[in-house]
């Protein structure tokens, strides 16, 4: 007799012949048989067709709308994939003049922000969120009368925006401001390039940001510029950079990349040679570099002697040699927002003849136009209570500057934010703008590159673009589209070749809309000759005082300057270097952490020495970082992020992602220091003080480890690295040895070949191209309806991402090398998961795919346990999808999985089936390249190639046959369909094993 709990004993159903369980079983059978007998109409379902049929919009068929990404100001071209009238996924426009076809994680994630239920719906009077809704006409009337009063009194009007590179919006701004006696448009960037603009004003006589052509740069020296992840136009730079990392075995060539930086950046991880250089040493190092280059150029020495005092003297000399050897195809970049440093960068580039080749000042960049000095002037004006009207659009100054910019002292503050933010909370009026996917817009990211955005969906929330709002206030009642078209008709169309043709403006505009952009000659910058007088060696270096550390503030790929702070996809994206999700943290090098007796997760106060501003953050011990700095990510600590409190599943032991009333991370922007110095992210000093408590950081680094323990390795063989790397010289000399020296014997075949033949879908991932940018991770999440699980579930190793970026360290802190490896289901031919599934829920397809059948899965999780690559994800819960608006971003072509079901990468089977269906419809065979999985589509570096491995002509088969090709954990003989191509450094080889 089974022991009974007191509760059971109290139940009335007890009798001698059966327990409560058997009673329930009988009841269950009863219900089951009743449903068998009484079946079986499903619930009544309506099918509601549209009133008007349309050729373009066939239900169930995706259509694509060309637009321009609004995730940041880089102006990448996107195609919005729309289904049934709403965008569900963004993809890069192949061959776009800026981005070339890829997209970054922030761009991929920005589609989710469209369906943010907290966005403003129409204008509001009073503080954001708490204010009262007002109709557009009432708001316009009231505001216009206020403006009229200001025009009478000659009051001071300021418009504060981010970079406005939309020519039509700039025209509207000019028209609006012209009505006031004292009006001014001020712009700044959360991630500022103000110093680069100012430096060119000094050296070239024009405030401009040159276009960087990394695809032409055979030698790159980067001083703390994270150009592959967050710097100015990362997608474009990644695409260009990796073009010269192409390793065609028939024509071997490779660029050389030096990175000198303080923190461990994603770009530093890619570098052929990377050294740790403190921010206060950059000026001296650059002066030294210029000294060497002057010597080689044989011109007047302005930096004489700097080389002798520069840090890393020998390295600097070598960098100078290599740069000089490829002059005309070299590039020097620096991330510091310091005019003196940027002048030296310009000087080095001038000496290297980069202008006109790797740097284009004629078709200059307009991706960042902000001027930090103007913000300092505005702060002064505000402090004097002399600003009568301040209109803020596209930036969040209350978050970026805090008390440094006393917004509340403006006579009237109008916020044009689309969703509640720190600034709109202070505003007297909120006049919301729409999401970029709902609005018309244009942009000119580079002179001559005119990009267009168009609505992909009717306004979900009532909003008006800045252009329309300002025009309305200036008395122009035209609709936004008409304003834009009028500008294009008047300004751009006359300059186009189409102008001479017979087709007319409409055809020109429609063509631009269709392509997403148009290239026009005739508007370019005209910089002057290089002004040598502007150059002087760097002088104002300040090493931190004793006991302090240099403070480095940096953006993360997902959050950037905080504009994506309400995007759960991007919060849950692990940082590609630290692998931490849902937080920012104070990074310290292992040595420094040891010296300060701090360990991972301990809470510290980071206090700036000059102002005493502080934030409280957990410590992250970051290898490869300079010992003298503490690095903190910007973009966190946004107000309102307590909305994520109930993000994860609700259950007994569940802990909230963020405490109620709290925020995610801490706002480090408040540490940037006084405004008159510009938006400096690396020139402050701070002390780090332990608070005594600690938290657990949601790091995914140790989740899903592939490491084979030594005692399980095949006898007589080393445990093989997951990531194989070599050097360019080795590859050139002995191409066959790259992978073969790691070859492992196969223990024999367990399975008989029963493959039908003809098609085996496979993938090749070139680790030499992959930068770890994580665009693919978010692309996969958007495509495959991967849920967000929340911080607590991430801590429990239950993140659901089908595709992860594994990070491997190699070498010590001084010569740290970091390798990234995208890891997803390897679609093994001899898949261990298939043989352990008791219900045949995972099994092999005739095309070599490892299929996962959700409706068969009963959730034993045997497959996940047996998977050597640890890529299977289990639905521990029905992850909340309560935000009905956000559910509009779900891909209707992929099942939303329920609790108790295993899932994993499917090689985007829905795209395979779509391509097959289209081919069959067109009566043709599938062609190589017809199928592009979401990860491949998103990759700016073109590191991922998908196709049929059995077709010898396919791109993937050619890559799989490369000498660099290997499979991870080959010793297990599971015959994965994903081939990795060994990473190649253009530099000296480091010996030593990979740490995990």
């Amino acid at each position, binding site marked *: 007799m089974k022991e009974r709990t007191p509760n059971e004993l109290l139940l009335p159903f007890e009798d001698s012949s059966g327990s409560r369980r058997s009673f329930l079983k009988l009841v269950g059978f009863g219900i089951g048989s009743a449903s068998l007998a009484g079946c079986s109409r499903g619930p009544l379902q309506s099918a509601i067709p549209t009133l008007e*049929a349309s050729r373009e919009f066939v239900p169930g068929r995706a259509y694509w709308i060309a637009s321009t990404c609004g995730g940041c100001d880089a102006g990448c071209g996107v195609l919005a994939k729309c289904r049934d009238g709403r965008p569900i996924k963004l993809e890069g426009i192949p061959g776009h003049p800026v981005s070339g076809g890829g997209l970054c994680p922030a761009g991929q994630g920005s589609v989710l922000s469209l369906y943010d239920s907290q966005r403003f719906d129409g204008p509001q009077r009073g503080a954001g969120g708490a204010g009262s809704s007002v109709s557009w006409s009432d708001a316009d009337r009231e505001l216009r009368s206020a403006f009229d009063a200001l025009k009478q009194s000659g009051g001071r009007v300021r418009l504060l925006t981010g970079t406005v590179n939309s020519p039509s919006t700039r025209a509207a701004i000019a028209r609006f401001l012209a009505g006031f006696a004292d009006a001014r448009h001020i712009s700044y960037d959360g991630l500022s390039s103000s110093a680069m603009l100012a430096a060119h004003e000094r050296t070239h006589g024009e405030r401009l940001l040159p276009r960087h052509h990394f695809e032409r740069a055979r030698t790159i020296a980067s001083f703390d510029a994270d150009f592959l992840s967050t710097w100015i136009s990362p997608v474009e730079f990644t695409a260009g950079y990796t073009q010269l990392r192409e390793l065609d075995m028939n024509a071997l060539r490779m660029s050389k990349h030096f990175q000198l930086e303080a923190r461990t950046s994603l770009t530093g991880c890619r570098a052929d040679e990377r050294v740790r250089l403190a921010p206060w040493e950059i000026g001296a190092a650059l002066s030294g570099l210029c000294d060497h280059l002057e010597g080689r150029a044989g011109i007047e020495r302005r930096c004489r002697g700097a080389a002798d005092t520069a840090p890393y003297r020998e390295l600097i000399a070598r960098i100078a040699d290599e740069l000089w050897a490829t002059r005309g195809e070299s590039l020097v970049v620096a991330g510091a927002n310091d005019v003196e440093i940027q002048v030296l960068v310009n000087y080095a580039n001038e000496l290297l003849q980069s202008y006109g080749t790797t740097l284009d000042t004629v078709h200059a960049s307009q991706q960042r136009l902000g001027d930090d000095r103007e913000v300092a002037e505005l702060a002064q004006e505000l402090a004097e209570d002399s600003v009568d009207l301040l209109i803020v659009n596209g930036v969040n100054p209350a978050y970026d500057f805090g008390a440094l910019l006393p917004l509340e002292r403006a006579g009237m503050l109008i916020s044009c934010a689309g969703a509640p933010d720190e600034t709109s909370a202070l505003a007297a009026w909120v006049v919301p703008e729409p999401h970029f996917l709902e609005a018309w817009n244009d942009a000119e990211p580079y002179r001559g590159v005119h990009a267009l955005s168009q609505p992909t969906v009717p306004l979900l929330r009532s909003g008006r673009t800045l252009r329309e709002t300002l025009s309305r206030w200036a008395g122009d009642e035209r609709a936004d589209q008409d304003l834009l078209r009028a500008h294009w008709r008047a300004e751009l169309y006359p300059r186009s070749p189409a102008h001479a043709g017979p087709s007319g403006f409409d055809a020109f505009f429609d063509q631009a809309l269709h392509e997403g952009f148009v290239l026009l000659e005739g508007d370019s910058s005209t910089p002057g000759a290089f002004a040598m007088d502007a150059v002087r060696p760097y002088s104002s270096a300040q090493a931190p005082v004793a006991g302090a550390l240099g403070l480095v503030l940096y953006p993360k790929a997902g959050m950037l300057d905080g504009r994506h702070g309400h995007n759960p996809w991007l919060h849950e994206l692990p940082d590609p270097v630290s692998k931490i999700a849902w937080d920012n943290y104070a990074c310290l090098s292992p040595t420094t952490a040891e010296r300060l007796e701090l360990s991972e997760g301990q809470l510290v106060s980071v206090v700036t020495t000059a102002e005493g501003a502080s934030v409280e953050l957990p410590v992250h011990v970051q290898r490869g970082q300079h010992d003298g700095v503490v690095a903190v990510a910007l973009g966190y600590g946004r107000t309102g992020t307590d909305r994520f409190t109930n993000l994860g599943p609700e259950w007994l032991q569940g802990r909230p992602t963020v405490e109620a009333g709290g925020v995610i991370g801490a706002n480090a922007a408040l540490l940037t220091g006084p405004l008159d110095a510009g938006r400096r992210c690396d020139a402050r000093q701070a002390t780090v003080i332990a608070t005594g408590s600690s938290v657990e950081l949601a790091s995914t680094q140790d989740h899903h480890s592939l490491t084979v323990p030594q005692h399980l390795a095949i006898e007589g063989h080393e445990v093989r690295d997951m990531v194989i790397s070599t050097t360019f010289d080795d590859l050139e000399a002995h191409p066959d040895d790259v992978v073969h020296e790691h070859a492992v014997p196969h223990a024999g075949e367990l399975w008989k070949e029963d493959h039908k033949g003809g098609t085996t879908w496979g993938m090749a991932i070139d680790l030499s191209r992959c930068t770890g940018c994580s665009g693919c991770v978010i692309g996969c999440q958007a495509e495959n309806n991967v849920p967000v699980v929340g911080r607590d579930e991430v801590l429990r190793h239950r993140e659901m991402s089908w595709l992860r970026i594994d990070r491997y360290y190699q070498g010590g802190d001084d010569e740290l090398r970091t390798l990234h490896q995208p890891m997803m289901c390897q679609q093994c031919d001899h898949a261990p998961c298939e043989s352990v599934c008791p219900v045949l829920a995972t099994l092999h397809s005739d095309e070599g795919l490892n299929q996962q059948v959700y409706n068969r899965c009963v959730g034993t999780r045997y497959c996940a346990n047996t998977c050597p690559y640890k890529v299977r994800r289990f639905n521990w819960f029905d992850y909340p999808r309560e935000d009905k608006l956000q559910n509009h971003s779900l891909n209707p072509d992929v099942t939303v999985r329920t609790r108790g079901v295993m899932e994993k990468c499917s090689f985007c089977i*829905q795209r395979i089936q779509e391509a097959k269906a289209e081919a069959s419809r067109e009566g043709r065979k599938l062609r190589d390249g017809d199928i592009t999985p979401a990860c491949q589509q998103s990759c700016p570096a073109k590191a991922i190639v998908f196709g049929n491995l059995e077709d010898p002509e396919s791109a993937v088969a050619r890559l799989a046959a490369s000498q660099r090709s290997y499979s991870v954990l080959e010793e297990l003989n599971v015959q994965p369909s994903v081939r990795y191509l060994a990473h190649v450094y253009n530099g000296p080889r480091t010996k030593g094993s990979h740490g995990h």
Partner: protein
Amino acid sequence: MTYRNTKILIVCMLLLGALVLAQDTDIRLPGNNQGYEPEQPIAFSHRLHAGELNIDCQFCHYGAESSRHAGIPSASVCMNCHKTVTAKFDTVLIERELAEVEGRDPRRIISPELRKLYDAVGLDENLQPTAEGGTPIEWVRVHNLPDFVYFDHRVHVARDLACETCHGPVGSMERMRQFADLSMGWCVQCHRDTPAIPGGPAEDHASTDCAACHY
């Protein structure tokens, strides 16, 4: 074997028996909606349109060629014909004769079912647009597969599969009825029996991979 287990065994056997019997009766397994013939908001007759008038299926269900879903036609598709056809021809004829007898112009006759269509499109008695505009028609869905099944019409249309193979004699159905049971076994049987390439070898049949439909 305990008494309890015997009881459970007997119940199971009874259920099995019931299942066997169910083959010949109207009782079906859960999810099988064969024969489902719901009433629709407008008494649209497939017998008249597809049967008597012999209108091609894809004239209205044009999505079948290009999309996963065949689609239920928009009201504007109906209006292609019903702009002029407002009632049955014989009622129109009767009105004409009556008008001739009474010596007046024939009135426009609108059948009650088509009135519902015009209401949906937003047309008044004289078939002029109303100020309020229209509201889409809420048809009752007949064929409904579970959410984890992705059936694709366009592949089957591309293979010249007759619509009647799965949808049955639609031309004789006054009201639309689910003809086949649309079960997985029914799908797979056809896939097993049909060569992948028309006229191709029998063993190279249409895909029976799980991922052909489940993803």
